[in-house]
């Protein structure tokens, strides 16, 4: 079967991608989380492969080889164990594959809303940042200067004298 003209992935690879991503991040209805095999998220993953196409293909092939062609038939425990095992030793393709899946997953509107984030670009609205508790600085303010002043004393003795000059 030929490659998808837009993505460079074959139908078999797209199927593997969906199955593996769904096992990596399964849906959780209780928490309101879609799975990474959700069609919208899959489309985003595939769209954003770009320069990562080669390592992603390598990752898909390696996982499928590790599963000896039986990934689809495995139960959730088996899939998770295989994925954890493969990621632990998967090197650069694993890191890239994880980044591609997570990068698309954690910008999906539903996902962001479910984890308490607003689904929007940072600019132009930005975010609020509390001042925090500046009174904590009182414990430091009064301390004697302790940077080493090179203008006085011999080596190793010239500390604690830095003032306005």
């Amino acid at each position, binding site marked *: 079967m030929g490659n998808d003209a837009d993505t460079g992935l074959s139908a078999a690879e797209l199927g593997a991608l969906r199955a593996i991503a769904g096992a990596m991040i399964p849906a959780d209805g209780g928490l309101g989380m879609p799975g990474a095999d959700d069609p919208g998220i899959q489309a985003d993953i595939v769209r954003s492969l770009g320069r990562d196409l080669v390592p992603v293909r390598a990752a898909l092939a390696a996982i499928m080889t590790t599963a000896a062609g039986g990934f689809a038939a495995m139960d959730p425990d088996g899939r998770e164990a295989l994925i954890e095992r493969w990621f632990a030793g998967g090197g650069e393709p694993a890191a890239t594959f994880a980044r591609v899946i997570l*990068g698309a997953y954690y910008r999906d509107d539903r996902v962001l809303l479910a984890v308490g984030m607003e689904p929007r670009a*940072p600019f132009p609205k930005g975010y609020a940042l509390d001042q925090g508790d500046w009174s904590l600085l009182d414990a430091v303010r009064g301390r004697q200067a302790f940077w080493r002043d090179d203008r006085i004393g011999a080596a190793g003795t010239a500390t604690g004298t830095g003032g306005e000059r």
Partner: protein
Amino acid sequence: MADNERVDVLIVGSGASGAAVAWSLADTRMRILCLEQGDWVKSSELPSNGRDWEARRHTDFDISPNRRGRDTDYPVNDDNSPMKVANFNGVGGGTVIYTAHWPRMHPSDFRVKSLDGVADDWPLDYWALERFYEENDRMMGVSGLAGDPGVPPRHPPMPPVPLGKTGTRYAQAMNRLGWHWWPSDTTIATTPYEGRAPCINLGHCTPGCAQGAKASTDLTYWPLAIRAGVELRTRCRVREITTNELGMATGAIYYDADGQERFQPAEIVILACNGIGTPRLLLNSASARFPDGLANSSGLVGRNLMLHPWPIVSGHVADALDGGRAPMNTMWSKQFYETDTSRGFVRGYTLQFGRGTGPASEAIAGAASGRLPWGRAHHRAYRKLLDHRVGIGVACEDLPEEHNRVTLDPVLKDSHGIPAPKIDYAISENTRLMMEHGIARAEEILAAAGATGIQASRTVLNSPGHLLGTARMGNDPARSVVNGWGRSHDVKNLFIVDGSIWVTSGGVNPTSTIQALALYIADQMKRRLANLFD
């Protein structure tokens, strides 16, 4: 080859130092031209404008030129280094994507030989730079708080970035331990400043600031320099500096935006290409007259590369903190900065306290560190990570060693066919001991802050883009490349103003000192104009 009209001063590179020197020299009314290989970056094109802002940190705004791979970048072979090169090639240079942390060197940093018996003293001291630090702080626009007992006096013109929940948590821990901390100086505007809007917390400042609150030199120095008559030409990549029979620089050969080879004649040439780009250009300028590369009679061009090893220690606390919805910078600690030989090493480090990161970045970091499992446990684990991150960077002083160096790669070339740089770099024993000391202290702090799952990344993720030492300054021509005011010992109308002239590295982010030095050199040049080449 097409020849351009002669200029008085040719600056190569428009980053932190190139911008500062251009602005300062503009009041001489000399004809000044800067050639920059990259483009202007429009604020509307920066990642934080879009929903893909985190993904773009791994593509066109990656900090590694090798991964970013723009046609304005040049590749760097950093395979033989545990630390990877980070930079940005465009108007503003590294300041476009820097984190805007703004410590100065300490006075002791300029006197390491006299005080601690290692490396070399600088040919100038902190006090010679002090007024240029102050001038640069006003030009870049610095936020911070005066009165820090850990550093010499300084006068940040704007109030500090808020402590927030994350900074408050660290401050409580530091007070419990009795250790020094202070809000960091940053070049993030916290109030309107010289046409810049104040920070609105777009997140980590590294992929550029769409608000324009972060001081990059395309926003600070360049508009003023251009208004004062300096010309800045983009997409002009310099291949080599040319010389005449008197051993003086005559100008530069470069490729213009159309890829055409051109010659730019100049009376004075100033290099501002950073600690990798400058030695690369000097080595690429080898000729029959200068067979080992230009300005290299000492053999030190490219040597003594310093990169600031920077372990990061992180963990997660039970409460939600600021997450990635604020600048990364919160506070610093100088508790372990000055030498204490009972620690088993000389020199020291700054502790730099960071905030969290965005939703995808937190997940990626979690997966890489093993904190975030795959499968059905994923979602519950993620909820304990996002917005719960605390992390401390250990900014270690890196002492100069000649075997750490930049050379020309025999095979790798940029898009114009110019030989690319190769770096060979190893972390020294002194630095390793310092790193372990800093990691242990950071672990104590995070534990005192209530963090669990504390982990240290020693070097793998570290590429802070501090590129220093490869054309060092000094009074002895046999032991240095430029003199105490930036002029090449060998070529009397060639100056270097970027991070490559550093003698030692201090344990701080370098840019405030790089720019103070550039302003100092410009000032020296102006004072000596009548006999600049004597």
